[in-house]
């Protein structure tokens, strides 16, 4: 018996559907700013919970570090997305690098200074006068501290600037009064360690004194944003979903479980505290969605960099801000 034309047609459609290869996920490399720790919780959460796959993306998260520069890798084509600090972005724009910002991860800069309130009380900027202040020469903490000192009318010879490195011995020994730390990462660890030794600690936050120097943001190349806006949108959507879920208090246990898979060195109680602090720095206070770009803070960051001689003239930073959602 010869099958009818309609049966053949149905069979052809079924076969065609069966033969059609599964849609391949688009690949993307995402260069982080630092090693796998609490500061990249959202990216890790998005990756392990399949949010990138949901958006048809296969994303490789690569750890950052002091020798890694996401902006350079974007230009070289080694990464499609990255996390970079605002000063990195502005400096790169000033030198002609076509980098754009698609989301701002930290609403408050985690770079703060730890000190012992028993030895030093900071109620106003003038209280820094005569103190030994730790800064990383060349780092953005130097820029921030110099801005604060200038704001308070404190000249450099009224304080002692101490060059900090990876190890905290000078702070532990009390040779340095205030020491720069990432509030949500090392800040929690030092607070815990000194607390166990019976010492009280406090944090000096530049934002409390009006200096809002923007920290980690998600960046991509102008070319990628222009040619593949859908790809960028899907990436940012997945990443920010990861951040929103990771920062949601009801998912705390799951976030810590996720982090423990990548960061085995940090004890669970510390991770829990780090998560609570990170939440305060990442979630916007005005109810705006996570990842919102604070344009005023970006303009202030640009202004600070001009005043500190880090760039010669304004780069028009608002042109680099391309919020995707």
């Amino acid at each position: 018996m010869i099958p009818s034309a309609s049966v053949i047609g149905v069979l052809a459609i079924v076969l065609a559907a069966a033969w059609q290869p599964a849609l391949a996920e688009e690949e993307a490399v995402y260069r982080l700013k630092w090693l796998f720790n609490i500061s990249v919780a959202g990216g890790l959460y998005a990756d392990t919970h399949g949010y990138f796959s949901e958006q048809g993306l296969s994303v490789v998260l690569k750890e950052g570090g002091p020798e890694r520069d996401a902006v350079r890798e974007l230009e070289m084509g080694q990464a499609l997305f990255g996390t970079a600090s605002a000063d990195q972005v502005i400096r790169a724009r000033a030198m002609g690098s076509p980098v754009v910002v698609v989301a701002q991860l930290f609403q408050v800069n985690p770079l703060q200074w730890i000190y012992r309130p028993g030895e030093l009380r900071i109620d106003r900027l003038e209280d820094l006068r005569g103190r030994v202040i730790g800064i990383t020469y060349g780092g953005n903490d130097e820029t921030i501290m110099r801005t604060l000192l200038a704001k308070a009318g404190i000249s450099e010879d009224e304080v002692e600037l101490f060059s900090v490195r990876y190890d905290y011995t000078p702070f532990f020994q009390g040779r340095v009064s205030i020491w720069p730390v990432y509030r949500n990462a090392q800040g929690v660890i030092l607070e815990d360690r000194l607390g166990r030794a019976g010492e009280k600690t406090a944090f000096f936050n530049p934002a409390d004194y009006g200096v809002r120097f923007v920290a980690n943001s998600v960046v991509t190349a102008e070319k990628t944003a222009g040619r593949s806006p859908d790809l960028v949108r899907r990436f940012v959507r997945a990443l920010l979903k990861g951040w929103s879920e990771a920062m949601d208090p009801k998912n705390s246990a799951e976030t810590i479980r996720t982090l423990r898979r990548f960061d085995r060195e940090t004890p669970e109680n510390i991770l829990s505290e780090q998560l609570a602090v990170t939440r305060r720095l990442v979630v916007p206070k005005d109810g705006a969605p996570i990842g919102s770009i604070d344009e005023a803070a970006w303009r202030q960051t640009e202004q600070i960099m001009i005043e500190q001689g880090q760039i010669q003239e304004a780069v028009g930073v608002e042109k680099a801000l391309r919020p995707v959602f």
Partner: protein
Amino acid sequence: MLHRRVYQFLIIFALGLGLLFAIKYVMGLSDYVIPSPSGVWETGKETARRYFGDVGNTLGVAMAGQVISVFLAGFVGIAGRRATWFGSFIKVAAYNVQAYPIVALAPILFILVGDGLFTRLLIAAMICYFPVLLSVLGIMSEPVEDIEHFYRATGRMRWQLEVKIRAFENLGKLTTVISGSATLAFAGTIVAEFIAANAGIGYSIRIALYQSDMGKILVALFMIGIVLSLYQGLLELSGQAVRRAWGGS
């Protein structure tokens, strides 16, 4: 010899720089990734004087570190040349210290000796001494039978004489190793400055890296290369003078 060292370095540096610029223009990279020739020139004009002072500072520490390491390697090499328990103990200690990464030792050094000049000196010496030690151990463990046999047979051999004979017979090797170790002392000092100091060219490079300023890094590399070429050339000249004075040729 000095001018040859310098122009050879200039050729190598120019080739490297040319390659970087070729990559920049072929790939259409911005000045942030690789600065333009005029950008490097401008940065050079701004920073050359300061960086030259920094390299001079580093060189001073490297030279002192090298002297320490040569003495240390000489001492360990002479003490460890014999197949005795003490000789073996010295060798094991020397090898193990070398195996530890400097970045891991740095915090201990900060606690013990602070974070100033002495730490730089110590790290420079630690990085530099091992190759010298290996050569000294090799030379000192190898008897010069033709000459030593006579002194042994006549019962006049002393350890000082043994060391002198072996050093004299291998003078060429020793001076070459010492001159070559200048590079390591310099590199060691830069590493020390990078992780543990507030002065020197390593410290300046660290700041430039924080500022993602490739132009400054290129200027720093140029300064290091020039000064190191001159220093190595001078060491080679000194080595030749020593060989002429001791060897009579």
